[in-house]
């Protein structure tokens, strides 16, 4: 490992002074941080098995280089232990993929934030939460990995509200937005395996989305699907107007009930795509900005399903293809599911990358 240059550090006399320095210099997101001492940062870099100077690319919009060293500093600040660091790196590699359009996700007026979904045995090994309260607090791994990513976007990408991050509302996931998919209590293939990773492997998927919308989801498959399709096609979300991708989180009891009645994940996805729709009259009723949205996206070929639709009774799906509806199993065994609408066809698309542990 290359020793980090002295120029990348400074000396501070006391703990309290150091904590306040991070606020004074704009190096934190509003919450205090774990102080990134050389010892902690070097342990983080060592855990990656990679050179501190290696770069994963320039983080938009301010294009600071995402070197392993700088990412390690931010991972320490977020509360990560060295064993978390390969997950942070995999998530960054995913966010930097062009289809995720991190530049746009960071700067849009929409509230989307990149959600990190950890899949594979590593989630249980590192005590990520994939069960009750999965989007909530209480678990270091979810919180620390999620916060490390946000701090790196803040410090290296310049994702700062009113400067480059123009989100009108945003959501609390700007502090940390990381869940794990339930591996054991899940009748279906997990998301990362569906997306090409080997069964039993570890991977992360990132997807830019709104915060979780609660869906009271119980009963027969048909009853669950009835409420899910309604929640997914709310006129307030971007998918109805601008396509793109969306995420549905079913709890393990929901998934078990579907599987027990013979529904595969593909069956559920296909049904959701066929039935999560709104009429053109509904869309037009939202006003002219939505029409402009639609036209702009049709013109660039990103919403071919909206082409040549003139009848007010015609219905349009929330995504162009069934595969653009992502389904994850997580949460407690109760009667609630969640829908997390995406940004639309502007980007934020799901990207999956393997977790490389040395």
């Amino acid at each position, binding site marked *: 490992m290359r020793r*980090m240059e002295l120029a*990348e*550090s*400074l*000396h*501070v*006399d006391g*703990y309290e002074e*150091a904590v306040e*320095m991070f606020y004074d210099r704009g*190096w934190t997101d509003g919450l205090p941080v774990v*102080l*990134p*001492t*050389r010892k902690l*940062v070097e342990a983080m870099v060592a855990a990656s098995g990679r050179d501190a100077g290696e770069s994963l690319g320039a983080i*938009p919009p301010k294009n*600071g*280089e995402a070197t392993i060293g*700088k990412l390690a*500093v*931010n991972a*320490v*600040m977020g509360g990560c232990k060295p064993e978390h660091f390969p997950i942070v790196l995999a998530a960054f590699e995913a966010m930097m993929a*062009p289809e995720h*359009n991190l*530049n*746009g996700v960071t*700067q*849009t007026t929409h509230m989307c934030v990149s959600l990190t979904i950890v899949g594979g045995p590593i989630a249980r090994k590192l005590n990520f939460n994939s069960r009750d309260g999965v989007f909530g607090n209480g678990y270091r791994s979810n919180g620390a990995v999620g916060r490390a990513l946000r*701090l790196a976007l803040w*410090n*290296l990408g310049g994702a700062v509200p009113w400067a480059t991050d123009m989100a009108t509302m945003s959501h609390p996931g700007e502090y940390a937005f990381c869940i794990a998919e339930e591996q054991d209590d899940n009748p279906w293939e997990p998301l990362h395996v569906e997306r090409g990773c080997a069964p039993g492997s570890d991977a992360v998927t990132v997807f830019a989305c709104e915060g979780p919308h609660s869906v009271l989801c119980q009963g027969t498959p048909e009853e669950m699907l009835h409420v899910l399709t309604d929640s997914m096609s709310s006129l307030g979300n971007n998918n109805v107007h601008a396509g793109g991708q969306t995420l549905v989180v079913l709890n393990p009891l929901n998934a078990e009930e579907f599987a027990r009645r013979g529904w595969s994940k593909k069956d559920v996805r296909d049904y959701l795509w066929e039935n999560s729709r709104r009429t053109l009259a509904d869309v037009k009723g939202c006003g002219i900005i939505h029409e*402009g949205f639609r036209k*702009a996206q049709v*013109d*660039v070929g*990103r919403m071919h399903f909206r082409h040549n639709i003139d009848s007010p009774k015609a219905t349009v799906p929330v995504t162009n293809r069934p595969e653009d509806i992502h389904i994850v199993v997580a949460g407690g065994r109760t009667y609630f599911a969640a829908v997390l609408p995406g940004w639309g066809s*502007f*980007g934020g698309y799901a990207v999956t990358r393997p977790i490389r542990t040395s």
Partner: protein
Amino acid sequence: MEIMIPVWEQTAAPQIARNDLKLLKDAEVALVDDNLDVAFTDQVELKLREAYGAIVKRLIKPLGSAPSPKSLLEEAATCRVAVVGIGL
């Protein structure tokens, strides 16, 4: 205690915008259209042509919210001036 710095030090000096619009007369100007508000961009193009005498080459980004592709940047770089961002 030694604290590692989480940011890169600012190295490049900020660019100062030139405000002499007479330079636009007969100059080839690349207008990078973000494809998000066509009507507004039409107005900007008209103003560049009629008020300032520019020769406008309009280059349309495939996706307004993503950075321009390299080919578009290279085409814009052949012009004397490039308008790379507009806003209401």
